[in-house]
């Protein structure tokens, strides 16, 4: 994170979620749309979250090799 660089709006967390900064509409697998409601939101990438499309930390329960 250099001082001059523009900080990213989307951050892919190794083995974890995708972070989205700002307001977005996220479409889930079933086509339903969800409006982000935090300064930064975490979108599930492992597919196991119980609060999809948002991350609920469940990726930690998956063996490391099988994480996104």
């Amino acid at each position, binding site marked *: 994170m250099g*001082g001059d660089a523009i900080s990213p709006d989307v951050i892919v967390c190794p083995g974890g979620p995708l972070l989205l900064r700002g307001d977005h509409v996220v479409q889930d697998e079933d086509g339903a749309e969800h409006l982000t409601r935090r300064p930064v939101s975490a979108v599930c990438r492992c597919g196991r979250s119980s*609060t999809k499309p948002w*991350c609920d930390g469940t990726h930690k329960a998956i063996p490391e090799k099988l994480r996104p």
Partner: protein
Amino acid sequence: MTAAPHRRGQARLPKPRGPLSERVFAALAEEHDLPEPSILAAAVEDTAAEDRAITLWTLHELCYRGVAEVGDEREWDPAVVGLRRELERDLEDRLRSRWPGRPGYAGGPDGFAEAFFAEVEAFEGPSVSRFVHTDASADQVLELLQLRSIYHLKESDPVAWAVPRLPGAARAALMELQYDEYGGGRPERLHAQLFADGLAAVGLDPTEGAYIDQAPLPVLEQNNAVSLFGLNRRLRGAALGHLAAFEATSSGPSRRMAQGMERLGLAEEMRHYYEEHVEADAVHEQLAVRTICAGLLSAEPELEDDVWFGAHTCLDLESRLAAYLLDRWGAS
């Protein structure tokens, strides 16, 4: 000096737990000067850890929203500050003696996040939330909520003191997380307020410090540690490490707490606090580790040990509280 009139939500002076707190609380309430520094130093050395801890908690409280019976100007009374430093030194020595040192990895901001999550995952300790999930009685959960209230009613406040002390990237990153913690500008969504609403809904007192007299040593140490880290600029690394470890151990346990409360039929408002933290802290743990702590280490790599020290302190103190409660409930 005139004591400030009692303001709603302000803590009251706790019950003394030994000769040190007895003298200090009397001096604060009766608007007397504290005893001479040498007498206080001897009293700190001679008395039990719990007496020291309740005294320090009360002196820290003067820096938050104040104590009803104590004049606001006592916060910066040189004798009060002197005693606070003495007690903080004693606490910091104890916390540092419990820290095994940072885990073996290359170091620096690049490998930090993966090493941090791995370390938190590998930490072994008893878990209160697992017990609440499947076995705890409603009375046990209410007792836990009373003890948690000391911390959650000032949730995010201790680390807020770190904000102006951080380099640019970490400062912006911490504010991004804090904005969410403080309800994004909506007081009814302030996390401390969600907890207060939950307490009231389950029939408990949402006043700050209402249950301080019930708090055992591990609870006092948990609260004193975050105030120590927040109030001392030199410990900003520990403050951020503590925050990251706290957030990284929150999502799963919050889900178990919410499900345990549902099992017991406890009020929805209290469950809502924990449900909110399942999702919020899945974001916050990533931010705390990847943008806040890693941001700090990019600019101030010399603080790396303190980040790990703060993280360990968070995990260790929670583990001590869990051991205390599970033992008390015959569940260990």
